[in-house]
């Protein structure tokens, strides 16, 4: 399913929020057509920042981002959505006072004609959303919100889906559900770039992963390779584990 055509290419990104302080220090990433890419690394390594930089929410100071070969560095969010990039933030990712159906409708705001068709597609992936479509998203549990958020992002028929920690704040069982959902979405043909703190789960489902450390891509490989790599534990827990 995954081909070798690059869809998203980030090259040597330097970016940060505060003047003078870069969170990303020369970070690169390539996602090919149909791939499920994981971004993992210790807290504070710049994973979310990388995702936000791709989605134009962080000021990129140098380096550039290509979408299907076209430079999209610094484009506004609504332009990116038009170009088929969808983003699911880690927190506050649903509209609490809107119903589930309305949340999904917002996903396809720019092309209301497509609503019916996309809605059918999304609820075929998440049948629960259809059953509870009149319920307000504010009253949902964390896992359900995650489902709504992902469903909303899929409404635009994105070619690339950016997910920021879909497992954040979920119980282990719900986390597993969320990961399966991501896999399903990916298998439906969407290129997914996912930031995850739950590295093991992430590596289990992704095709390829980037390990970030201090704002750089320290390591890359297929999920399987990394899963069995002893360096992984070291990156997460420092070299502490070796010390007696």
């Amino acid at each position: 399913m995954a081909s070798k055509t690059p869809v998203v290419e980030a090259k040597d990104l330097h970016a940060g929020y505060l003047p003078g302080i870069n969170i990303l220090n020369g970070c690169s990433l390539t996602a090919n057509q149909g791939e499920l890419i994981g971004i993992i690394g210790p807290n504070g390594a710049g994973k979310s920042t990388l995702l936000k930089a791709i989605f134009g929410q962080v000021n990129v100071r140098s380096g550039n981002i290509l979408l299907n070969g076209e430079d999209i560095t610094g484009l506004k969010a609504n332009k990116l959505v038009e170009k088929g990039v969808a983003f699911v933030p880690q927190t506050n990712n649903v509209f609490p006072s809107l119903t589930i159906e309305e949340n999904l409708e917002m996903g396809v705001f720019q092309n209301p004609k497509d609503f019916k068709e996309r809605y059918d597609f999304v609820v075929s992936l998440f049948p629960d959303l259809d059953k509870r479509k009149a319920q307000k998203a504010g009253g949902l549990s964390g896992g359900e919100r995650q489902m709504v958020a992902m469903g909303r992002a899929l409404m635009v028929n994105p070619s690339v889906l950016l997910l920021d920690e879909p497992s954040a704040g979920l119980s282990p069982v719900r986390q597993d559900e969320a990961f399966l959902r991501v896999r399903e979405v990916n298998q439906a043909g969407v290129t997914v770039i996912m930031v995850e703190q739950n590295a093991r789960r992430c590596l289990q489902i992704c095709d390829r992963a980037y390990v970030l450390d201090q704002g750089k891509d320290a390591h890359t490989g297929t999920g399987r390779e990394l899963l069995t790599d002893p360096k992984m534990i070291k990156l997460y827990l420092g070299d502490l584990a070796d010390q007696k």
Partner: protein
Amino acid sequence: MANDISVGKAEPGCKKIDPILVADNVTRQFGGLTAVDVKHVEIPRGKITALIGPNGAGKTTFFNLLTGFDKPNTGTWTYEGKDLAGMPSYKVARLGMIRTFQLTKALSLLTVIDNMRLGAQGQAGEGFFKAFIRPLWSANEKRITAKADELLTRFKLDAKREDYAAALSGGQRKLLEMARALMSDPKLVMLDEPMAGVNPALTQSLLEHIKDLKNNGTTVLFVEHDMHMVRNISDWVIVMAEGKIVAEGPPSQVMKDQAVIDAYLGAHADTDLGTVAINKIKVGK
């Protein structure tokens, strides 16, 4: 494994030989979500304790509860044997339990030296009536200023003395906030992510300052993500996940704990999601 901090085996909620802070049954809920659910924890006196855990584990919320910046749903905790539950944050600080914040709260439009002076306790001139009578506080002000200058020198901020705090870099603000916290000679310093946003060049000096604190007899409790730092300076590590304390002990021991590795690397279920057929796992509502 034996150690010189806990009474008996190091395990979640274990008793300490000499605790400075003891918390029981502290919970905090936001809507339906339980952010903090700590059954029992003791912080050892005169040591550096690290509070670690993945995003959303409830570390900062726990900090806020202990220091009176947030109100728990249930729970009691004592500091030096004094009950702190329900005590307003400023009183907690006056007892010698001073905290810093994850996002620095340098008082931007005060000069660096005024920031420092504000950290001092017992300045009579901070009372409204005494403020008018300079002799009542000028001697004290001199003493405070001298102390502030000494700390600024120690933290290498003396060159910035007269600058507005707004003019400092992110790392310098962290240093200033820490130095300011030390103005009151606290017994317990609580640092919320002291390394976040700090330029790597400054991290080493921050680490040294924290070690110095311990050498001067101050207890340190800090929240941190940076495992290198945790390994480097902490005597004791407490691990939180999903609001609960899942492990504690000396760093070398905790880092090998399966619960800790799981907390960071992911849940402990043995199923490999990469190989599970999608329709096998039924997704409930």
